[in-house]
């Protein structure tokens, strides 16, 4: 995490864009710009700025937004609910859909079921999130008028409205993720199904379903868990886009607005928070190996 923090800071420090010049606007003189730079502490040497940034970080302080003058942690906290709802729903639904798809494809390897799942998975990789999102809106909101086009309802305003507004965003965001997990589940299952103990289980007359889930899936779980963790990176990148298309007031929107205004304390904060989430999820995945494979000990 320390390395991440340093890399994040360094990257944003080295890139040339000058927030002070943008903040001041076109009519500003160079004197104005210098005054703003001083106020923001941009004139301090590199190590001093890095030191104070890390010091703040350790106290849970991500700095103050250049544009709105509000603390970044406050802005992020305000926007976190839609993003968490979106990613969490997508994650759960995607895993529930993708793993059975992959298992069925592996169990029926070579048949049309298998080919259909694989075709879906290659296609799912190739369609960008926002193109899919617009197609879904066009079909389900505009043509069929089943679901709302855009917007978000907080969960405390009713579970039903909250869920209705999340169906399309989750479907759009989840497709790539489902494609990735289904593909890995199939590959991993095929490996395990070729093992002797699976044949033994089948030979002793266990029901095919019990063999698939109890023997094969459990042993195939480690690579699947790994890809679920790595795939979070896709979810995070996709969430920013999905929130833009569906006008969800989440961290993704915050990021896009911050990019347009070069409000770089916000960008630093968001990159750091997302990366921390990504690292933590993958840590949890590593720990879950112990559950799937008792031989693994830390």
């Amino acid at each position, binding site marked *: 995490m320390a390395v991440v923090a340093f*890399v994040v800071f360094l990257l944003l420090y080295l890139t040339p*864009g000058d927030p002070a010049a943008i903040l001041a606007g076109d009519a500003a003189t160079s004197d104005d710009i210098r005054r703003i730079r001083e106020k923001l502490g941009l004139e301090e040497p590199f190590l001093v700025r890095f030191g104070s940034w890390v010091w703040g970080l350790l106290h849970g302080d991500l700095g103050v937004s250049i544009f709105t003058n509000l603390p970044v942690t406050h802005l992020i906290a305000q926007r976190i609910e839609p993003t968490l709802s979106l990613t969490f729903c997508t994650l759960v639904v995607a895993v529930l859909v993708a793993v059975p798809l992959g298992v069925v494809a592996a169990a029926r390897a070579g048949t049309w079921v298998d080919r259909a799942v694989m075709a879906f998975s290659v296609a799912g990789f190739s*369609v960008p999130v926002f193109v899919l999102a*617009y197609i879904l809106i066009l079909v389900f909101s505009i043509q069929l008028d089943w679901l709302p086009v855009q917007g978000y309802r907080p969960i405390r305003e009713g579970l039903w409205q909250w869920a209705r507004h999340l169906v399309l965003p989750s479907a759009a965001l989840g497709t790539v993720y489902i494609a990735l997990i289904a*593909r890995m589940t199939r590959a991993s299952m095929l490996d395990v199904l070729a093992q002797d103990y699976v044949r033994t289980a089948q030979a002793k007359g266990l029901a095919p379903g019990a063999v698939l889930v109890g023997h094969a899936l459990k042993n195939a779980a480690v690579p699947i868990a790994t890809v679920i963790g790595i795939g979070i990176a896709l979810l995070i*990148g996709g969430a920013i886009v999905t929130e833009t298309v569906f006008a969800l007031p989440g961290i993704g929107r915050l990021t896009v607005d911050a990019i347009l205004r070069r409000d770089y304390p916000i960008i630093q904060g968001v990159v750091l928070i997302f990366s921390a989430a990504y690292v933590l999820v993958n840590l949890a995945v590593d720990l879950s190996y112990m559950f799937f494979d008792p031989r693994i000990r830390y």
Partner: protein
Amino acid sequence: MASPIWRNFKDALRRHPTAIAGGVVLLAMVLVALLAPWLGTVDPQAVAPVRRLKQPSAEFWFGSDMMGRDVYSRVLYGARVSLSIGIAVALFSTLAGLAIGLVTGFVRWLDAVVMRVMDGLMSIPPVLLAIALMALTRASMENVILAITLAETPRVVRLVRGLVLTLRDEPYVVAAVAAGSSLPRILLRHVLPNIVAPLLVQATYVCASAMITEAILSFIGAGTPPNIPSWGNIMAEARSMFQIAGYLILFPGVCLSLTVLAVNLLGDGLRDALDPRLARRM
């Protein structure tokens, strides 16, 4: 051309019609991009406010946008941008990844340092890293290529390093070291030829993912500058018009998806052809 690799390659291609289809679509896209000026296009930047937001018709094959520009011409010229970004990123990140991976795989003291930096970069989701980089530089095609390359390279480094670490213990490499071959000679003669195949496959996946990342960057306003008609830009401008002019997003979106699909299919075919062991699994 009777080497076993080449024969395997041809066999596998015959067994994988999807890879052929991918190659054909990709070739068609490349031709379209190269020949854009001669395919009945007009100046993709020419604005004509009188004729704005025309539905697709005989005159405007893909319709016209909110400034009256011809979407067909813009999409064709957009193919140039997307393809060159995809190919450039694939090329640069493969070369950079190869160089860094080869050296760190063999030079122990560098390995620890470089891999910590790569771990740091890899713990930032690639799209987010590219967004952060683009947010703080001027929008230009070179910067987009640079940002996506930086975001993609760590994964290539890890692949190359992993391969190098296993190759280093192969008897023929150990023998070459014992015989006193110089490091560059070992790397070029003994290690590199064994890395080319998986690297080529990785390069196609990087190319596909770079084209999608470019579209995402442009779509949220952090990509190629608006005066260049990339597929992402055309869709970004159409965002507010979506409900009245869906075709503005549909045409570039379909082109992008088709191209990425073609590259992915080609990559899958290549992987199967070059690594028969994996062929039946993935």
